[in-house]
Every structure is written in structure tokens, then in C-alpha cells.
């Protein structure tokens, strides 16, 4: 698979200085009427040639779809990342909710005055709701900027040598913005 960390590709030429460069990958395009299972059966019947000085038993070829070939490498990393993100989200919510709760206690007088002037319970609820939306949408907007910086950092800081080349495809698009919007709305409901 062409690596995202590569700067220059050269068509192979066998040089007298380096006649057999090491192979790092072998990629095949299946015929239109061939499935991966068919191709697996096809290559398993072939015996890989082995040099005389190497002794392996039962050497065989295997085929893996390129699209999902290296996903298993990312599972431990993402378990860790998702746990960290959920932890940060919960901590931030608890922190903000406790601050707002203390503030709401201090605003009892304000709500009482509004009540005297005719505001019913739903009016006060709506006001608090909108304040939460203002807070969380402001946070969401700045969060998108943080997210953009995070995505750039992933693409630039993770060394290519670790082999997690799929991370180089990380980008922020309308789906990401929708995620931020959804997270802001859920947070606003939680904070009410």
C-alpha cells in the first residue's frame, strides 16, 4: 500500500548495486468476477518457492482485503483514546454542571423577581435552557477550533515509522462539524 509518509516514488529498476531490494508489500487487483475467497483458494494451491538455505514448513500465501488490512493495529490505541475522550467529557460536564448549580443557587432571587412579574415556570426554564445553549454552543464553536488543531496535530506529529498510516487520512469535514453540533446540544440539555 503506498505509504502516506513517502515523498518520492520511483519505478523499480534493478541496479547492479542493489539487485534485489527487499519487498515490503505485494498488492493485487482482483478480476471483476473474483471474490476474496476465490482468490484465497487460488493462491493457496500455489507453493511459494523457497531458497535452499531457508527452511520453513507449510509456507503458503494468504490474501487480505487492503481496505481493512491493518485496522487491527489501531484497536488498542482507539480503546485508549475513546476512554480518554469520554473521561474528559464527563469531567468537563461535571465541572461545568457544578459551577452552574452554584450559580443557580445564587440566582434564586432573580428567578423569584421574575416570578412576581408574571413569569411562569416554563418561561424561567426556557431562559435557563437558552443560557445553557449559549454556553455550550460557544464551547462547541471553540471546540471545533481545538478539534481542527487536534486533527492537524495527528497528521503531523504521529511518526510515520510507527506504521499507522490510516491516521494520515484524518480530516475535519461536515460530518465532524455535525458531531460537534450534536455534542453541544446534548451538553446543553445535560446542563439545564
Amino acid at each position: 500500500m503506498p505509504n502516506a509518509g513517502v515523498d518520492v516514488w520511483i519505478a523499480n529498476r534493478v541496479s547492479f548495486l542493489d539487485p534485489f531490494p527487499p519487498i515490503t508489500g505485494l498488492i493485487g487487483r482482483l478480476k471483476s468476477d473474483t471474490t476474496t475467497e476465490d482468490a484465497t483458494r487460488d493462491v493457496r494451491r500455489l507453493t511459494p518457492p523457497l531458497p535452499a538455505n531457508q527452511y520453513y514448513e507449510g509456507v503458503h500465501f494468504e490474501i487480505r482485503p487492503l481496505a481493512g488490512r491493518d485496522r487491527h493495529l489501531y484497536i488498542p490505541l482507539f480503546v485508549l483514546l475513546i476512554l480518554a475522550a469520554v473521561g474528559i467529557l464527563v469531567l468537563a460536564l461535571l465541572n461545568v454542571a457544578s459551577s452552574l448549580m452554584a450559580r443557580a443557587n445564587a440566582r434564586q432571587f432573580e428567578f423569584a423577581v421574575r416570578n412576581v412579574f408574571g413569569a411562569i415556570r416554563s418561561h424561567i426554564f426556557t431562559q435557563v435552557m437558552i443560557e445553557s445553549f449559549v454556553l455550550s454552543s460557544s464551547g462547541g464553536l471553540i471546540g471545533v477550533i481545538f478539534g481542527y488543531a487536534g486533527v492537524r496535530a495527528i497528521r503531523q506529529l504521529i511518526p510515520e515509522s510507527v506504521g499507522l498510516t490510516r491516521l494520515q487520512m484524518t480530516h475535519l469535514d461536515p460530518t465532524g462539524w455535525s458531531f460537534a453540533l450534536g455534542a453541544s446540544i446534548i451538553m446543553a440539555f445535560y446542563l439545564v
Partner: protein
Amino acid sequence: MHDELELHAANDPGSRRLQPDIVLRLMRGAVNRMLSADKTLVDVKSGFRQLRKRPALYAGSVLAIAFAIGVSLTVFCAFRAVFLQSPPYSDPDGLVSIEKFDADHRPVPLRHNDFNVLREHSRSFSGLALLMGYPEMQTLFESRRSSVRVQRVSANLFWIIGVTPLLGRVLSSPDTPGSVLLSSRAWQRIFSGGSVIGRKILLTRRATRSSGYYHKGSTCPTRASMSG
């Protein structure tokens, strides 16, 4: 409101006059309804006013929310890129990686003979391509040296994966002397995004630089934006 007053009067045939408290209540309801359109705007303004009243408290809250959303968004985008998106190749489902294992399912290095066996005897592939070494080399362009990662590939690789370059053409034949394909990043970094097609660059191995050996460079560099 007028209709309601008339309705109330009609329901109370014993009195042609309206009670003052009822009128007051109806008027207050009408005013509330008229103001309801602006009410949301007023509440939004009130929300911002609350933010201004306690800037430190709310700035802390906004930053906490922003940080949490920023981290979640970054993880979400990375998760999506890794697990939910297909590689940027034409018909990626038709692309497979061929690997070699021993009886204990330990990977065995691929060799050029394996490529030859598969190319000659397998019936499942419309094309096979090789990826080879991944050395770091030096480029010399207009008396500037830069470090680059180089990958040798079989010339049909880009045809197999179905990628077209942004400018120029893909590698087509190993017999084309010294043509290379540049990544978009290298094009920006080394050549500052200038015109490079047809210009010469020199590529040299680090290990052989001191001996004065230069691997011959390019006469027709092109660029491509690739990832995967």
C-alpha cells in the same frame, strides 16, 4: 383578543359589562403573546448578559466544554478515518494484499520469486504490483539538500490502485529513465509549489553520499496527493 372579549360577553348574558380583572388578565395574555416572538431573542441576550456578568466562571466553563468537545471531535475524526472510511483508491474492495506465512502463521518475507509465481500461475488477479524498500535519501535541487523518504514500486502500481496525479503523469514503465512521482507534501516542501515537471533533481543515498555516488535523478517529476 377582541374575539375573546366578545366571546366572554356572549357567555355572560346577564351582564353587558366586562369585569376589570378579566380584562386585565386577557390584556396581559395578549401582551405576552405579542412579546413571545421577541422572547427568545431576549433570552439569548440574557444568556450573553449572564456570560458577561461572571466572565471568569463562564470562560472556565466554555473552555472546559471546548476542550472536551475538541478532544472528542479529534478522536471521532481519527476513528472515522481509520474504521469507517475507505482508502482513496478506485474500487478499494477489489484491492488485496498478498502475504506469506509459515505453518505456525508467522509472517515470512516475500521475495521476487513469489511475485513471479503469482504472476504466472494465479488466475484471480488482473494485476499485481510490488512495493519495495523505504529508504531515506537526499535530494539536491538548485543547490539545496533535503531529506526525503523514497519508495521503489513496480511501474504498474498506480494503474492498479487507480490513482491519477494532480499534475503530470503516473509512473508508467520501469524503462522510463529516472522518472519519479512526488507527493504533494514533497512538492510543497522541496520545490515550494513551483513548476517541477521536466526539471532535474538528484537523489542520493545517505550511505553512499560520502563515496560520491549519486543515484541518477529525475527528468520528469510529477506530483500526486496520496495517502493510505
